[in-house]
């Protein structure tokens, strides 16, 4: 961890924090947008379903069957205004009480059985409900008779292939803009680390000078001791340590001197 100088470590810590913060926010923002897009399209499909369901409700109340061709034609036609602007990709279908498709804007589906989830998703109070589906946004509404029996279901769905490009476009824009933000902030972090006078740097500089001086004092070349502003953790232990080292050095010099004198006088 400490292989590099402290400024590099501080910069790494700051840069990592910026990247993690930006990435977390980016994921959160994209998730919010993704859900918002799905909600917005669900609301649009809800309009479509409402329009068709209004006509079907009136027809059922008037005694027509859910698979009455004229009723079905009018129901699909009534929702055309609501379907405008939905990329022409939405599919509106009417199911009977058994889940069989009796009418649809996609003629290939007529006569086919719909997924059971669509039938069971419509709420009991005839409100519009959405269905969790991986490949499309699905909104359903149950059609009830006067006697509260289920006559059928109106289903509107939009393939995710329409929605996904919008989400991906945001993702790319977010990635680019987010990268720019991160790069600018990391540059700012570098300026903060290398240009601002962090108190710890002065203390470490003093420590370096002091230890280097003491080391050189013990060598054969003279050095000037300098303490400067040492880190607080060393404030109480360094002076006695320095004194002990200097005392030992002095003692060894004196012993060497005394031995030399003994040698000379002998």
């Amino acid at each position, binding site marked *: *961890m*400490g*292989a*590099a100088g*402290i400024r590099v*470590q*501080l910069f790494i*810590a700051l840069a*990592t*924090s*910026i990247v*993690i*913060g930006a990435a*977390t*926010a*980016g994921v*959160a*923002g994209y*998730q*919010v*947008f993704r859900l*918002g897009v799905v*909600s*917005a399209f669900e*609301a*649009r499909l809800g*309009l479509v379903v409402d329009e068709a369901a209004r006509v079907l409700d009136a027809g059922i109340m008037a005694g027509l069957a859910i698979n009455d061709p004229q009723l079905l034609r009018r129901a699909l036609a*009534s929702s055309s*205004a*609501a379907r*405008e602007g939905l990329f022409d990709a939405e599919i509106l279908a009417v199911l009977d009480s058994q889940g069989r498709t009796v009418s649809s804007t996609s003629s290939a589906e007529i006569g086919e059985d719909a997924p059971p989830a669509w039938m069971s998703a419509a709420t009991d109070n005839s409100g519009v409900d959405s269905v969790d589906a991986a490949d499309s946004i699905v909104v359903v509404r149950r059609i009830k008779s006067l006697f509260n029996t289920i006559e059928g279901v109106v289903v509107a769905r939009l393939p995710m292939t329409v929605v996904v490009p919008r989400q991906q476009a*945001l993702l790319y824009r*977010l990635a680019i*803009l987010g990268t720019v*933000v991160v790069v600018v*902030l990391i540059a700012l972090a570098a300026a903060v680390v290398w240009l601002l006078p962090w*108190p*710890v740097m002065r*203390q*470490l500089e003093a420590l370096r000078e002091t230890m*280097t001086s*003491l*080391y050189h004092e*013990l*060598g054969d070349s003279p050095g000037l001791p300098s303490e400067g502003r040492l*880190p607080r*953790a*060393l404030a109480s*232990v360094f002076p006695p*340590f320095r004194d002990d*080292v200097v005392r*030992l*050095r002095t003692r*060894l010099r004196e012993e*060497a001197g*005394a*031995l030399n004198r*003994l*040698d000379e006088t*002998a």
Partner: protein
Amino acid sequence: MAFTLRIPLIVSCLVGACLGGSLVLFVALTEADNSLVAALEGKALAHARSVKDDVETALRIGIPLEDIRGAGIYLEEGAQEDPDIRFVVLTDLNLERVHYGGIGRRRLDPLLASPEFQQAVADAGDFSARPMGAVEITGFSIVAVPLMAPERQVGYVVVAVQAKQVREALLIELLHLAPSGVGMLLLLLEYARWTARSVFEDPLKRLASLMARFRRPGRIERSGRNDRSEIGLALLHFNGIVHRLADRAERVLNLADEVKRAVFDRDVAHEAGRRGQEVQQTVADRVLGEPLVRADPRPSDLEMSLALLLAAAALGSVAALAGGDGRDLIWPTVGLAAAVGVFGGAHSSSGWGLVASGAAVFAAAAAWLSPELVSGWLVPFIGTSLGVCVGAALAAGHRYVDGIVESPVRWLLVRVVLGGGSGALLAWTIILEASEATAPYFMLGLIGAAVLAANSDEVVRRRLFARLPARPAA
């Protein structure tokens, strides 16, 4: 010492993360806002066309616009059914209100009379070329479509949505994700603490400890952990100082021995021998011979990896067990007790405890991703594995820091709060978003980061896998 580096670094890291996050979030929400407002305006237009169809049915059979009975109730119902629709108005050709639903007249009339709206309608002409684009006035996005009786236009359908609703909805959705943001900030707090401890506080404490022990009797210990940082070089200089003292002492001893052998005067020889003996006992015995070099264990060696492992365990436990009943808690309890027993009592290194902890999380994540591996025992297996993870991590942590921190229990508690708390908050968001399937990936990411943190330096790895106990001399 905390105010020298730890607190400024924590504050800087949190400010940096919040600043980066805020800017990116602002960009994301602005983009989302623009896209969703456009979608909302499309919805307003669709609603306007739907109302137009219904009203024109009445106009076609000859009912004048102002005489359509129940129009107000019909428009009000339409506005009430959809919270995004703020008002729906039928106006005459001069954009004077005829029937309305939604917000009150006092707020509505100034909007209809506003110059921007009047100009936009005038610019749209007969609307034959293209629909009128939405006009934004005091936060409302307003669209209009022409109302046609047979052969002539009689007025407009005006519908408004409010972007404020979109922004409020986005912010509410964001609140669901807020716990994960707080969780990430807790992890960043621990990361900043760990950085300050590992690059500054712990090495400095080691240097202070070596200096304080210098004047005590016994052999002088040298540092076995000297990296190229500023304090690492200071420790290297300390070793150098001791080495130079040893060198001087050896020279004095050699000189004493030489003088003792060379002189003929027995008193002089005796004096030389006595001096040499004194230097031997008071100085040389402390610094000469095989150097006493020790790579000290430091709490920062496993602080970050422990927090990340606990975060992974907490995330997995909360995400996996939150929906179950209380009986599922027996599995992590069993796993924790077993791991504490194995790794707390045995004379193994803390490194192996961390390895076991990481392997347990990996096993839990693997079982989650491939439930067929544990066929029907998924929750017990995940619960037990995560209990083993926590137990092994806590036992390894306690054994490592026992004797080198004032209170190992308090030290572990801080790791549990920061690491476990962040994992639990991340899990809470995952549950709120119904994304439990992503939990194993987060767990794997966290143990990957824990492995990186535990291998940040070769000496850290060697220290973690050194056999315990290895306590500093009193």
